């Protein structure tokens, strides 16, 4: 922590705030992920981490290094952008895959009005 000696207190408080918010939201998201009962509900939880969880820590990092280096350090924003842009890809593909599997197995919880996934024959998918 030696490097933090030069950091002004206001910056430290700001950084800490964002850190706590970011990590706290991430933790809450993951708690939700492990506690929510169905997959479609669970899928919402991690977005806490990928939205303001990441955002908080990115902010913390940007403020911290900018103040420390006394010049704008903004490359962390790239992380924020990439996470925001790519996470939906993952979630969409995964959710649709889950939908397919549930429909193929005839899982009653799933909305089946648009249903390209009902099996014509054959056993259920593994797992």
């Amino acid at each position: 922590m030696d490097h933090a000696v030069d950091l002004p207190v206001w910056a430290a408080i700001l950084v800490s705030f964002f850190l706590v918010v970011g990590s706290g939201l991430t933790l809450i998201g993951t708690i939700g992920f492990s506690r929510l009962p169905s997959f479609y509900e669970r899928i919402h939880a991690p977005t806490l981490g990928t939205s303001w969880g990441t955002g908080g820590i990115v902010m913390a990092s940007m403020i911290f290094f900018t103040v420390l280096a006394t010049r704008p350090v903004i490359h962390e924003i790239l992380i924020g952008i990439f996470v925001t842009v790519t996470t939906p890809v993952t979630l969409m593909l995964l959710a649709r895959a889950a939908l397919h599997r549930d429909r193929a197995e005839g899982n009653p919880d799933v909305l089946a009005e648009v249903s390209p996934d009902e099996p014509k024959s054959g056993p259920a998918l593994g797992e």
Partner: protein
Amino acid sequence: MSQTILAVSLTFAQVCLAIAMALAALRMSRGPRAQDRVLALDTLYVNSMLLLMVFGIRTGKDIYFEASLVIGMLGFVATVALAKFLMRGEVIE
């Protein structure tokens, strides 16, 4: 002063993220379905990325930044492949 504040908040953040990672790992092994595991892996990736960023703040060096950036930018590729495998049974058609 600022050292103490930072030390507390950094420790808090690390503990939160570590717990989050542990929960994700648990979900990863428990499932119950493959999609849960994949989603857990993705969550684990994001949490690790955040942990590394916090670690960067802790050390005050930004040479660890690229590791986080790699996770942020490329981490989804593995998950995409896994998801596609679940949906189509095949990664590249």
